[in-house]
């Protein structure tokens, strides 16, 4: 138990503080919904799409890949890149696609609810 809490603490430090906890998985799924991508590509795309707000470091990103892969939401495949390098390309599984849909819906619901609360005066 002690160990678990220690470990969890370490992760939280690694995660960018401006990223709401638990949303990294959803963002990765969303990024992969367009096309299969390798780790660096995903990091760059996340940064671009958020206009530089989210900078995810390699540690949290790869932990998330591992977690998503084991949950069966994404799968990885080694392929050559455009620079004739070998990289692991991640792509959404059918289950991952379903999860993305449900999480997006849920997220929308929550954001709307939070917005309603914040706007009420």
């Amino acid at each position: 138990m002690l160990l678990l809490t220690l470990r969890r603490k370490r992760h939280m430090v690694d995660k960018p503080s401006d990223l709401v906890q638990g949303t990294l998985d959803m963002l990765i799924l969303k990024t992969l919904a367009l096309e299969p991508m390798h780790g660096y590509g995903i990091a760059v795309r996340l940064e671009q799409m958020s206009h530089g707000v989210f900078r995810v470091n390699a540690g949290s990103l790869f932990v998330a890949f591992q977690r998503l892969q084991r949950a069966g939401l994404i799968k990885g495949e080694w392929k050559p890149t455009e620079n004739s390098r070998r990289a692991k390309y991640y792509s959404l599984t059918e289950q991952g696609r379903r999860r993305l849909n449900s999480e997006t819906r849920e997220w929308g619901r929550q954001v709307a609810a939070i917005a309603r609360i914040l706007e009420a005066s």
Partner: protein
Amino acid sequence: MSLLRNATSGLRSLLRKTQVDRELNEELNGFLEMAAEEKIKHGVSREDARRAVRLEQGNFEVTREVVRSATWESLVETCWQDLRFAIRMLRKSPEFTAVAVLTLALGIGANTAMFSLVNGVLLRPLPYLNPDRLTMVWEKSSDGSAENVGYATYLDWKSQNKSFEQLAIYSSWQPVLQVGEPEPLNGLRVTSNYFRTLGVHPEIGRDFLPEEDSPNTNKVVMLSHRLWQRKFSSDPNISGKTIDLNATQYIVAGVLPASYQSLMSQDPRGGTVEIWRVLGYDISQPWACRTCHHLVAIGRLRDGVSITQATAEMDIVSAALTKAYPKEYDDVGVIVTPIRDQLLGPASGRLYILLGAVCLVLLVGCANLANLLLARAASRQREVAMRTALGATGGRVIRQLLVENCLLGLLGAAAGLFPAC
């Protein structure tokens, strides 16, 4: 489903560790290289680009560790490391290990041996129905010692008491069984209600009938499960057949269940009783007299009657008998003892004391070991300091030491098997 996938992919990375590690390395390296190339495109020199990436992403080794330690199998792996380390540490100080293991082994071994004995003798329930209701009933002789009863006395006890649901008697009997090779057996002659008193029902056949308990009827016997297997090759139709004992024909009434072990044995060699016949006494027989003290009485108390109450009532019955037959009785009452006490004798108290003593021995051993470990811990402070400096968390150090001590405990327990046997 995802739990299963998690387990299998965890197992895969455990079993094919190098490959999984290499893939992770390649992936992370690729990530850093691509990040650097991106910067080179913007006109930064290769060296500067690499340094910049490193600054942005932090230590590559740390990142790799973070990714690896996020999985459950990393716990298995580090535990395995700890175990190997613990073995090395114990081998490095063989004197300490030997003393610690020996201390534990002696303590644990003595405890195990003692507990097996106590468990077998005291804690295991007797193979009777409600054994706490069963008592032995003795005549109390003038010097206060317990004495066997005569048949006539038994009959009077049986008809006059109200404390016992059943009262039975038995005496020893050594017949020779003439089936195949003649074999002397250890047996008992019992009244027809003997098994009802104990609460045992035959597995095959029937119990003794009251009308069979007289001198001039068919002689019937009950067989133990083992005797039935051994001598009659588990014949399922044995009930009602005749067998030869002491050149006399006996009819087999039934076979007792295998779970029943007779604890009543007057055989000094302590052999188990394997055969029972009906007592078949009659008051007219000379050996059925009041002074013929050769029968042992066993009674089942009625519900709600305590041993004290039963003793008080039996004392009154006995006093009336002494008054009626002053020549035949010189005893002063009746002794009623719980069957457990009877079977174990005065040993039970001593056994518990012994068990307590060996528990204390283990405690003393543990205290000694704790002292030893404390002394060792003092000399290992530098090691712990070094580990902490290298980035081990408190939990990690505790786990490593815990694994080491668990190993020591297990070794002690394993070595404890030898004195226990």
